[in-house]
Structure formats: structure tokens, C-alpha cells
């Protein structure tokens, strides 16, 4: 759906390239290898996402970055129709390891998307940056 005066839309929604910094470089290197990392705190045993250099729960720096299985379930979603490049679905999925992460549900029938539906990890290229983790219905 486009508004009067809106610029002519590109045919495909470009995936914004993730900004990489020294703290998150490792995450995006792993992404190149198809590995989705999350943070795990050895002090309080809590997983977290997005991964960072310390634990957001207990503030310990004893965190390691672990590879997620890629299995998840849908926590919440919305199909976005106000998009000049066609509808897309934003979602939070809950990783099998615990954290709920923001993503898109791609390559699947919108009609079949439901809360608690099983989802699995897929990677998509970004516009000139590292690949980005997405999910599809399992």
C-alpha cells in the first residue's frame, strides 16, 4: 500500500546490513558460517540475546557465546501490509535454548503462521553486509 507522494518503491525489501562492532564481530563471523550464537552466563546460567560481552541479568563478564540449534516456536508476529515492497512478517520466536528473539518469518504461507507454531532458522543475505538470521515455519 503506498501513500500519495511516496517515492517509487524498490521491487524487493532490502535487508538492512547489520552494523558490526568489536563487541559483536564474532557473532557476524559465525553468521557467515551459518551459525546463530547466543550468550550464556556461566555465573547465573541464564542464556541471553542479543549476545553481549557481559550478562544482562547478573552483570558478570563470565559469558560464553553458544551456538543455537535453530529450533524455535513463534511467540508473537504481525504481517506487515503497509510495505511498498509487499507484505512481510515480523515476529518474536522463542529459541529452544530460551531467549525470545526478534526476526522475520520468511518463505512460508502467511495463513499458516500461528503463535506456538514450530519454526526453524534460515539465513538471508543482507544488502552488502553479513547474512542475517531469519526463521521459517518448520
Amino acid at each position, binding site marked *: *500500500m503506498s501513500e500519495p507522494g511516496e517515492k517509487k518503491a524498490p521491487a524487493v*525489501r532490502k*535487508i*538492512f*546490513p*547489520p*552494523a*558490526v562492532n568489536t*563487541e*559483536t564481530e564474532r557473532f*557476524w563471523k559465525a553468521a557467515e558460517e551459518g551459525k546463530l550464537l*547466543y*550468550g550464556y552466563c556461566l555465573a547465573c546460567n*541464564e*542464556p*541471553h*540475546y*542479543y549476545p*553481549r560481552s557481559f*550478562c*544482562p*541479568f547478573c552483570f558478570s563478564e563470565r559469558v560464553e557465546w553458544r551456538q543455537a540449534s535453530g529450533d524455535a516456536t513463534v*511467540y*508473537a*508476529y*504481525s*504481517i*506487515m*501490509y*503497509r*510495505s511498498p515492497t509487499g507484505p*512481510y512478517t*515480523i*515476529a*518474536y520466536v522463542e*529459541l529452544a535454548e*530460551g*531467549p*525470545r*528473539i*526478534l*526476526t*522475520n518469518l520468511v518463505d512460508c504461507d502467511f495463513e499458516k503462521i500461528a*503463535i506456538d507454531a514450530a519454526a526453524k532458522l534460515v539465513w538471508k543475505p*543482507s544488502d552488502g553486509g553479513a547474512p*542475517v538470521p531469519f526463521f521459517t515455519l518448520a
Partner: protein
Amino acid sequence: MSIKGKAYVMGAFEHPTREAPDKSVAQLHAECARGALADAGLNKDDIDGYFCAGDAPGFGALSMADYMGLRNLRHMDSTETGGSSYILHVGHAAEAIAAGKCSVALITLAGKPRTSPPGGGRGGGGFAAAPEAAFEMPYGGTTHNQYAMCATRHMHEFGTTSEQLAWIKVAASHHAQWNPHAFLKEVVTVDDVVNSPMIATPLHRLDCCVVTDGGGALIVTSPEVAKQLDRPKVKVLGAGEAPKGTYGGKVDLTFTGAAWSGPKAFAEAGVKPSDIKYASIYDSFTITVLMQLEDLGFCEKGRGGRFVADGNLISGVGKLPFNTDGGGLCNNHPTNRGGITKVIEAVRQLRGEAHPKVQVPSCDLAIAHGTGGSLGTRHGSATLIMERE
């Protein structure tokens, strides 16, 4: 120390424009400031405290203070919590006044997302450098679809329906018909809302607020200054603020920061939700209203759908008259930030200056509550309780 009774909202001004192609954003701020000063009966040089947020162009409060020629400032605050900033600023102004740091505080908001999008508000493009940016920006998150995810989850957990959400817009439209400045003045029905185009499931076009240019300003003063002014006195009774985020993956979309800021404000004010005569509730989307009403304690968690249905928010009809100016859903949402208009309409109600068709009889206690940022990721919640003295 409490702020209860330590400060008064003595000036309130909502810019009448909804499209301002020929004015600068700074100019709109200044026009709003002038309007609020005139309303209070004060002069520019009386101002010794200034509050603004991310919509103010330039370097925090400095550019605007210099531009407006605020020569007597001894207190500044540019706390940014998005659209709720200006509700939060009233609480901060009351704190500063109670501590003797200033006695006449000016709060301004203005912007023009309607005639000069994008970025009508956001100052420095700092969002791209936020730590969460790389993990969120690729997914095309907008206010629409992030708030919509909360609605999806709320419907799943509590059985809330699109028709119930629609009642919020219907109530706002009933009020907006009496506001000559309202961007949308037409009364709509539940059917109109649920049959309007889908924007981001489950939210329709009419579940969304308007996009308007404009602004507003408030004057908050000490009790000593308030006494000298020839205006009805609106006393600050209590305020609460809270940020809510995604918490390292423990995001919970079923509640808002109102669950934390609300109880703080009610406790400070010494009143309870059932005492409130009028409620200004931030209405970026219908779901925003519903969830905040639950979290503020106007109804049980999960029963918001039933609470808002059947006109319960319509002045003169239901139990909790809300957003009697038409709110962000129909009247005005200047620079995509609705906090200041929430305070302004609450002040009108407490003064008895709302439109006669929507004025709540003997309205002596009101709440203004806002959510800024995104309900679906991180937001700043601000609650303000005011009383007519």
C-alpha cells in the same frame, strides 16, 4: 521527598495547526511556548527551567534555549523517552521545583512529520548506533508492526478481539467530532474500523493514530507563582516513570511499563484508579490504550477488551471518559509524539475548559499516561496524576 502538591500546571497550549509546511520546527516550538505563557499569564523571562526531548532541533536544550532567548534558565532537562517524554517532564519539573531548582518550568514539543517526513522528530540519527540496532533493524520493524505483535499476543492470551479494539477508536471519534481542530472529525463505527485496510495484522488503518504537524507546550510552576496567577490551579499529585525493554530475550509483550509507573504515581498521589474522573491515555494505536488501561489498574489484566467495549470510554456514556479531544487516534499526534497533548487535555478537563459536549462534570482528578518508543521492543512509560485545587 514527594512532589505531591509541590507544583502546578498553570499553562497549557496545543498548537492549532495540523499541517505546517511554511514553519520551521524551532518556530513551532517557540509558538507553542508563547501560547502556554499567554495561557498562564507569564512572560518569557519568568521561565527559569526548560524541558525538551528528541524532537527539539539541535543540541539538547541549548539550541532551543538560545533560539527562544531564555535568559534566566537555571535548570534544564532533555530526558528522552519518545512520545511519553512530556508527561515525564511534568514530573521532573515538579521535582526540580520542589528542590528549589526552578520556579517556572517550560516544556515544549513540536515537529512536522506530515509535511516534511521522515525524521520529523529524531535528532541525531543515533538509532543506527544503538547496541540493539544490528539485531533489529534488518527485520523491518516499525511502530505499526511492533505494536501489532503485542496485539497478536494479547488476543492469543486473553481472547481480545478486533471489535473490542475498534471501540477505542469509536470513542475517540465521538469526542473528536466536537473539536474544530481535530484532524479526523468524522464519527466512525466498529464496522468502519474493522473494515478499514489492514496495516499490520491485527491492526487496521483506523486502529492507528494520525500523522500531524504541530506541537504543544506546558508551564509548570511553584505554588508561590501559581497563587499569583489568574488561572484555575491544576496541582501535580503524583508521577511515575519506568523503562521497559526486551531484557536479554525475556521479552514479555503482554504488559507495558504502566504496570510499574502507574502504581508509583497512584501511591504518591494517594488515590486509586477508581477515583479518577478523566483519563488521557496515550493512543498511538488502539492496542496501546487497551494494555495501558489494564496495567494502570482500571480493569483486571486481560479484561481490557471487555472494559473498552460498548462505549465505556465515551464521555457522558461510559464509566471512564478518555481522550476527550479526540486523542492521537483522531485529533492530533504532533511529530509522532502524543504525550504533551495528553497533559493538555487533562488540564482542560480539570479547569472545566474542555468542549461542553465532552466536559466531564465536576472533574477534579485526572490521569495522563504515556508510552514512548515501541511497545514491542523498548519503551518509556510515564504516569501523571493531577487535581483541580
